C-alpha cells in the first residue's frame, strides 16, 4: 500500500491546485482536461499515429545499435589485438556527450527519419557495447578451463559457453540501452518532427496547451515503462538460471 501514497497525493495535489484555480490552465492543465485531450487525440487517430511513429523510431534505432554493439563488442572482447584496435576509439567517442553530435547529424542527414534513427542508435549503442565487452571479460576463467579440459571446439565454445555466460550482462546493457533510446528519441523529435510524441510535446508548447504536453509526457512514461518491463521479463526468462538474490 505504501507505494501508492506518494503518487495518489501528487495527483490529489494536482487536482486540487487546478480545481481551486491556484494555477492557470495554460500553466498546468487539470487532470480532467488531460483525460479529455487524451480522448480527443485517440478519437482522431493522432495519438495512435504519434505513438507508433515514436515506437518505430526507437525500435529501428535500438535494433541497429544492438546489432552494431554485438558485432563490435564481440570483436573487442574476443582478442587483445581486436580490443586494442577498437576499444580506445569507441571509449573516446563515448566520452563525447552524445547530444553534441546533433549538429553534425543534422548537417549530414538533414531533418528526416534517418537523422532521428541515428540519434536513437547512438544513445542505445554505448550501454550495450560496454556491457558486452565487460560480459566477455568477466566470463569465469574456471568455466573456460572446463571447456579446455574437454577439448571444446571454438564454435561450441562460443555458442554454448561464451554466449550464455555473457547473456546476463548483455541483457542488462540492452535494458539500459533501451532507456537511452527513449531519451534520445525525445531529443530527436524535439529538434524536428511532424509526427511522434516529441512532436506532441513541441506542438503543445507552441500552442501553450499544457494538456497536450502532459498527454505526451504520460505516453512517454507509459511507453518507456512498458518496453522496460518487456526487457526485464525477457531478462528473467533467459537468465533464470543465474544464482542471484532475486532469481
Amino acid at each position: 500500500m505504501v507505494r501508492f501514497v506518494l503518487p495518489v497525493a501528487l495527483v490529489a495535489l494536482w487536482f486540487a491546485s487546478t480545481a481551486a484555480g491556484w494555477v492557470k490552465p495554460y500553466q498546468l492543465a487539470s487532470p480532467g482536461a488531460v483525460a479529455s485531450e487524451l480522448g480527443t487525440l485517440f478519437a482522431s487517430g493522432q495519438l495512435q499515429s504519434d505513438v507508433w511513429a515514436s515506437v518505430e523510431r526507437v525500435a529501428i534505432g535500438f535494433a541497429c545499435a544492438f546489432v552494431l554493439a554485438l558485432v563490435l563488442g564481440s570483436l573487442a572482447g574476443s582478442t587483445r589485438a581486436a580490443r586494442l584496435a577498437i576499444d580506445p576509439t569507441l571509449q573516446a567517442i563515448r566520452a563525447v556527450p552524445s547530444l553534441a553530435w546533433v549538429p553534425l547529424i543534422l548537417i549530414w542527414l538533414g531533418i528526416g527519419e534517418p537523422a532521428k534513427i541515428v540519434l536513437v542508435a547512438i544513445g542505445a549503442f554505448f550501454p550495450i557495447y560496454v556491457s558486452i565487452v565487460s560480459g566477455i571479460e568477466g566470463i569465469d576463467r574456471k568455466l573456460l578451463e572446463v571447456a579446455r579440459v574437454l577439448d571444446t571446439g571454438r564454435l561450441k565454445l562460443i555458442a554454448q559457453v561464451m554466449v550464455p555466460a555473457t547473456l546476463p550482462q548483455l541483457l542488462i546493457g540492452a535494458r539500459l540501452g533501451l532507456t537511452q533510446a527513449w531519451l534520445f528519441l525525445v531529443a530527436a523529435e524535439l529538434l524536428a518532427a511532424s509526427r511522434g510524441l516529441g512532436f506532441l510535446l513541441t506542438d503543445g508548447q507552441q500552442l501553450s496547451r499544457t494538456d497536450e504536453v502532459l498527454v505526451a509526457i504520460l505516453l512517454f512514461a507509459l511507453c518507456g515503462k512498458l518496453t522496460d518491463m518487456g526487457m526485464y521479463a525477457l531478462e528473467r526468462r533467459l537468465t533464470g538460471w543465474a544464482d542471484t538474490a532475486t532469481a
Partner: protein
Amino acid sequence: MIAVALAGLRKAFGGHDVFAGLELTVLERETLAILGPSGSGKSTLLRCIAGLETPDEGSVAVNGEVGYVFQEPRLFPWLDVEGNVAFAARTPQERARVAEVIELVGLTGAAKRLPKQLSGGMAQRAGLARALVRNPKILLLDEPLAALDALKRLELQAAIRDIVRLTHATAVLVTHDVNEALYLADRVVVLGGHPATIVQSQVRNGVPPIDRDEILRALGVRLDAGESARGEAI
C-alpha cells in the same frame, strides 16, 4: 601397462620451481593418491597431466582418454545436470551414455535440475558424471571432496571407489586427507620439499605393508612417542 608417465618434470611459477626432476608412473587400473602439504604442487602436477599446464621441462605421456574432476563442481550454471553431462559428449555413443552415467553417480531424479538447485554433494556428483561420460581410461580427481562436509565426503568416497572399480579406470587422486588416500588408493605418494619431489611412496598390499605413520611423518606431522596421530586432514 603404463597409463601415465611423467619424466624429468619441472614446473616453475614466477621463477620458483614448484617441482623439478619429478618422475612418476601410474599403472593401468591403479588408483594413485597424491598427498602433500598445501603448495607442494599436487594440483599443478595433476594439471600438467591434464594438459592444463605446460611443464617447463620433461615429458608427460598419457595413454588414453582423460576425465577431470575439479575441486569445485564447475558446472555451467545455465545447463541442467543432464545438459552439463551432455556437454562433454562428442559422439552419439557418448550422448547415449548421459543417462547411464547420471544414474551411476546417483542423480537420476535430479537430471533436470539447474546447478543452483543442487547441494554441494550433488553438484560434485554431476561434475563426476561429466568426467565419466566419455568413458575415460584415466580419471584425474583434484581434491574433489575438499568442499564437502564429513558425512557427504564419506558417502562420495564410497561412490568414487565403486565407480572407479566398475569402470576399470586408472585414477589419480590429489587430496590432503590421509584417510581418504588410504581408503581409495592402491598406492600413496607424498610430495614434499622445495622444489617438491616424491618423499614417500607406499603400495597397498605391498611389502612392507602400507604404514600410515610413515606417511604422516613424510607429511611433516610430529608423532609423539607411542601414540600415532589421529589427525584426519593435514
